[in-house]
């Protein structure tokens, strides 16, 4: 059952198109992330759902009710901002209860709800503190509680962790996900951080230049990207130019080196130029295990990255990165030597431009 729907939504600012033909159905309780670089239209889309921007074209609905032209205050949508946006003149409890007071709920109900929200964010002892007395992480938890206190239909989060340091970001994102699942609330999360999107979301919408590049689960987005942008934006990727040899068998060549791919190539002809992508971690040395593709690779460089060792290899005239997990007994090849490397058919992705 669709809870939030965006149909053919576009937003133009003069001649500039910020969002183009955006279509998305979000189920109740689903956590969807908009992922993309700065200026890709993800925040504009979120702001259209919140009501801070009105779409130039298209319809936005919640539970089938058209909210496209409703004022933000009429939408019952909770929003968490990157800069927290807590009211500096109010205590934590007053901030959380603000939306309920606007709704003229009974004072006893407000007190109960504020207590409940403070318990959820583990800040019961900070009820009487002012925002300036809190850390960044605490302020964002209060902002989350304030947005959730009004029991919104949809929770919108606009890069809520960007202003926090790395450690707090990781712990708070787990907290956000856990609270969202506990309350079963529909959430839309805007981020440019692929790790955040991959770890939090039920589904990810990859956006580029105002358009949707790909929609899918984190597993699909990472393992089966359908466009070059999507593949490059999420994770590290080796790109190469290839040529289709046998569309029926999924065979292609990169610099004359033959590869087999699990991607359906039946719509292409022999000799077609294609973009080929292989993730670094999908390569391994053929001495360990042999997969569908076994090719000779010259070892050009080795970089130690902590848990991972990145090996730069050259297949034909194309350079690839190969990642292998670090362990104390790892035997690394010599720089300049030629080794056989292998990857599965599924690892060889053929992408649309």
């Amino acid at each position, binding site marked *: 059952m669709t809870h939030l729907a965006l149909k053919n939504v576009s937003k133009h600012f003069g001649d500039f198109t910020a969002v183009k033909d955006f279509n998305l159905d979000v189920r109740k309780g689903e956590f969807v992330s908009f992922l993309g670089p700065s200026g890709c239209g993800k925040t504009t889309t979120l702001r259209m759902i*919140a*009501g*801070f921007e009105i779409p130039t074209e298209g319809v936005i609905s919640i539970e089938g009710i058209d909210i496209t032209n409703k*004022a*933000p*205050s*009429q*939408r*019952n*949508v*909770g*929003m968490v*901002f990157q*800069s*927290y*946006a*807590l*009211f*500096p*003149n109010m205590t934590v409890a007053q901030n959380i209860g*603000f*939306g309920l007071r*606007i*709704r003229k709920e009974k004072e006893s109900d407000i007190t109960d709800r504020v207590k409940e929200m403070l318990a959820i964010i583990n800040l019961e002892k900070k009820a009487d503190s*002012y*925002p*300036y*007395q809190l850390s960044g992480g605490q302020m964002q938890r209060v*902002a989350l509680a*304030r*947005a959730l206190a*009004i029991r919104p239909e949809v929770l*919108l989060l606009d890069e809520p962790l960007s202003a926090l340091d790395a450690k707090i970001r990781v712990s708070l994102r787990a907290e956000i996900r856990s609270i969202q699942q506990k309350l079963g609330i529909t959430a839309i999360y805007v981020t440019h951080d692929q790790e955040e999107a991959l770890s939090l979301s039920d589904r990810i919408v990859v956006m580029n230049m105002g358009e949707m590049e790909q929609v899918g689960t984190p597993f699909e987005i990472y393992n089966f990207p359908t466009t070059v942008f999507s593949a490059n934006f999420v994770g590290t990727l080796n790109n190469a130019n290839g040529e289709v040899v046998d569309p029926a068998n999924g065979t292609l060549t990169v610099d004359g080196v033959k590869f087999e791919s699990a991607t359906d190539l039946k719509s292409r002809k022999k000799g077609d130029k294609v973009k080929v992508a292989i993730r670094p971690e999908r390569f391994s040395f053929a001495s360990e295990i042999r997969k569908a593709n076994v090719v000779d690779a010259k070892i050009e460089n080795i970089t130690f990255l902590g848990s991972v060792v990145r090996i730069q290899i050259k297949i034909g005239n194309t350079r690839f990165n190969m990642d292998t997990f670090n362990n104390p007994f790892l035997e690394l090849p010599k720089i300049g030597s030629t080794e056989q490397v292998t990857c599965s058919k599924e690892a060889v992705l053929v992408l649309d431009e």
Partner: protein
Amino acid sequence: MNLLARIRRIPFWSWIWFILGALYFLLPLLATFNFSLRMERDVIGFKAYIRAFEDPEFLKTFLYSNVLALMTIIASIILIVPTAYWIRLRLPEARRIVEFITLLPFVVPAIILVFGLIRIYSSPVKIPFSDITLLKPLTTFEVGTDILIVAGYMVLGLPYMYRSVDTGMRTVDVRTLTEAAQSLGANWFTIITRVILPNIRAALLSGALLTFAIVVGEVTLASFLGVPAFGPYLFLLGQHRAYEPAALSFASFLMTWVAMGLIQLFTGGQGQAAGAH
């Protein structure tokens, strides 16, 4: 020790300029105070103060000017806060024009302003192209004159009040706070009264103090509109007596300082709150 070390670190010429500045401001004040204490020959005392405060005209004009100042401050806040807010939120391109308008009172003398007001509002307000009178001339009745003088004072106080409010709004993220309040269901009135105003309290108080100081001591508008205000009273007193005006001037300085102290007291935590945002 720490304080001494800090004082020693201040450059010599800074001290010289500070002392010269302090003397420039304090010497006339001390001289006025000294003069006001010498009403009786060979006696240092507060007779001038007693005489000045005993005059029923003093209390009447002072209270009247205070009421005018209060009205001016309220009307200015009602006009300027939503204007400055809307310019920050939706019309940033209008900011330069509005800033230019707010500087006009520095260029246009009060005498021009008051003659303009008298000229326009000493005739009845009529429905255009008819003889039907909507309002009799504002200068012909007391409330009408009070409205005129408050409007005039609003213009005189505009540069100070607008700048204070605008600076106050710069210290809080007006746009995001507004959007946060909107997403929680607040309407415009609630946003301004419960979110914006409390967060620019310090700026409002500064603007209010400056407006208060201008209104209480203002002479031109009050004289030409013929209202019993404190400014003209002080002026007249100065023409006929020597010691009482000095006493009243010093007393009004003290009142201003008390007001400034109160602002510090009331807004002590504001800077912290806004800064942490």
